[in-house]
């Protein structure tokens, strides 16, 4: 009790003296408000390599598998192999000095903390910062498992977190640049006969003015919306979304009529292959914008 009071008094004193000191100092303005511990706690989401910032909690590979299948596999694949162009999360060990390196959590990343931090901060892609701490622990454990770094019965906790060391950690080196040196030669810098064109890319259209006409004379109002919002799922077929350009699939769906299909896009729809969120999850879109996007989406590819 007594100790506590002393500590408290000490804290108050420190606070007062530091702001008194500050006030006397050149360059101190006193603008803004002190950030309270609660405010900071709400936003301070970073995890450091030494585990600083980790919230209490735990998660098993087993739980991770279930969450991963539900929330991640649609983009990253059940084995972390990546669907379409979405990032590959597993494999690639031993490829870093190969012709085509495969950089993944297992083959390239330096710290487990980066995985914890990033999953909480940014994934799942469509719902960032929606995961509970235990879910993140479980997902981290599962992604490590996909990379053969832990066994299936592994449970990750705040306490054993720093035990896991990623193999590539020792292979990051400081920036040595400038590492490449040229000289300012003005004449006879090389032999003209030695010069060969080893690769070339020519523009299909000769003049940009014509490109403009071509690009703008046939705009599809829905194309922009589609590219901005719907492409995430409808290009690669994420979450069971019918792919753009899959004529057979769309013909079948359109048998119900354009109005029904459009209504499903507007209001959301759970069908046989998955869940179409209302407006794709982008509620800021107007109904008209979604309608235009649907029109573009169901069109056969050119």
């Amino acid at each position, binding site marked *: 009790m007594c100790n506590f009071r002393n500590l408290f008094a000490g804290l108050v004193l420190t606070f007062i003296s*530091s702001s008194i000191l*500050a006030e006397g100092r050149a*360059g101190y*303005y006193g603008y*803004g408000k*002190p950030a309270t511990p609660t*405010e900071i706690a709400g*936003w*301070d*989401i970073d995890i*450091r*390599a030494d585990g600083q910032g980790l919230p209490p909690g735990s998660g098993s590979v087993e739980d991770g598998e279930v969450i991963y299948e539900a929330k991640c596999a649609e983009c990253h694949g059940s084995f972390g192999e990546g669907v*379409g162009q*979405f990032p590959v999360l597993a494999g690639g060990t031993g490829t870093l*000095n190969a012709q085509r*390196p495969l*950089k993944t*959590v297992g083959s*390239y*990343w*330096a*710290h487990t903390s*980066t995985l914890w*931090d990033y999953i909480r*901060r*940014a994934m799942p*892609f469509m719902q960032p*910062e929606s995961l509970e701490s235990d879910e993140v622990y479980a997902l981290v454990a599962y992604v490590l498992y996909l990379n053969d770094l832990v066994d299936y019965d592994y449970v990750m906790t705040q306490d054993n977190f720093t035990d896991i060391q990623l193999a590539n950690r020792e*292979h990051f*080196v*400081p*920036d040595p*640049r*400038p*590492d*490449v040196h040229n*000289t*300012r*030669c003005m004449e006879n*810098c*090389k032999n*003209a006969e*030695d*010069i*060969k*064109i*080893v*690769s*070339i*890319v020519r*523009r299909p259209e000769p003049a*940009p*003015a014509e*490109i*403009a006409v071509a690009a703008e*004379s046939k*705009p599809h109002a829905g194309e922009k919306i589609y*590219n901005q*919002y719907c492409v*995430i799922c409808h290009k690669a077929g994420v979450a069971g979304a019918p792919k753009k350009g899959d004529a057979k699939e769309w013909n079948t769906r359109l048998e119900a009529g354009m109005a029904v299909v459009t209504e499903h896009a507007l209001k959301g729809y759970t069908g046989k292959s998955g869940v179409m969120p209302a407006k794709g999850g982008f509620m800021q879109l107007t109904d008209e914008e979604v309608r235009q996007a649907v029109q573009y989406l169901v069109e056969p590819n050119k």
Partner: protein
Amino acid sequence: MTHDKQKSGQVPDNEMSGSTVARRKVLLGGLGLMGGAAAGVLGMTPAVSAASNLPPNIPEWTRVLGSGVLTNPYGQPSPFESNVQRRTVDWLTPDRVASISFTPLADLKGIITPSGLVFERYHAGIPEVDPHQHRLMIHGMVDRPISLTMSDLMRFPSTSRIAFLECPANGGMEWRGAQMDGVQFTHGMLACCEWTGVLLSTLLAEVGVAKQASWILAEGADGAHMSRSIPMEKAMDDALIVYAQNGEALRPEQGYPVRLINPGWEGNTCVKWLRRLEVGDQPWYQREETSKYTDLMPDGNAREFTFVQECNSVITSPAPEKPLKHGKGKYWVEGLAWSGRGRIKHVDVSYDGGVTFREAKITSIVLPRALTRFGIELDWDGSPMLLQSRAVDETGYVQPTYQQLRDVRGTNSIYHKNAIHTWKVFPTGEVANVQLS
């Protein structure tokens, strides 16, 4: 579009003034239908009315009144310029929310990039941040953690500087060979603006940084919470907490209402929609500084915290988008040079693939860590050329060749490709992107 509508709305008032107006109305109607104003203008004007607008005739726009003030309360470029746009390359990313668009360098003049044409790069789309509810929090190893509103921030002493902004992956598609068909895509993750805000050092003085502090985490308010660790030296040197760009509030896609600018450093460190600065004593190893933005070397080691954007240059005209259109004769060849280490000292241009160079004129002001424009007069005899530019910065660093870069770094490092670039000019004046042995 609004512009067109208002213009055509004006036509009836002038109906009396004869056939020119009638034709104008047809033209404008045509524009509306075509959807893109410039498309209409470019497609139709030459055939229908070019000759009658040329001397000795009096052009139609000279004989009628134009639209009045506030036709566009926020001014827009001429519809004839509608081709000057950011563009993307869809195969680069799986979607447009974590993606990139490129600055149309071939069409720009001087050194300042108009705000609406600055390339875009973000990882979770453009958040719609309400500036009244946005807060910038500074905490960690500081005496007084604070939370600032935008108006708090704007009370601090303000400073402006012109600096380039470049994605370290600029040109990264070309490590293995020529791949992109225009300067917009080979070099367009590049822009230069006047940035206005508060020096980060001012804010750090305000909160009182602990002696042992050596790194700062900068974090965005977007869905990606984009975050990078910034060394204290940069923070105390010239890092700027920016709220204005080219004289007005930041554009949403550039981080409205506030972002970090680290002059001369990787664009990715210039965190947008900045919500948090945490002071610490070691780097955080965020995803964007391990999985990405590290440079993989041929031996399998990767360089980390490769912040500076080294000296680079490119010819923007001629370029694939700007062929030589007038046959043999004189041309003004021009381009851009920049260095994250300071000022541009020289730019040399070669017409023969790097056998002979001659020094170009610097035609803009020369500022440290800013785009610098150069130009040189070419007297073209119509034979094929291999055009190159090579910049030298004030540290004496000379922009390297592809060979020199690859000898040290191989072809898998993605970032920081600043090789001397070559355009092949064909006798037709057409220009292609090439790489030489």
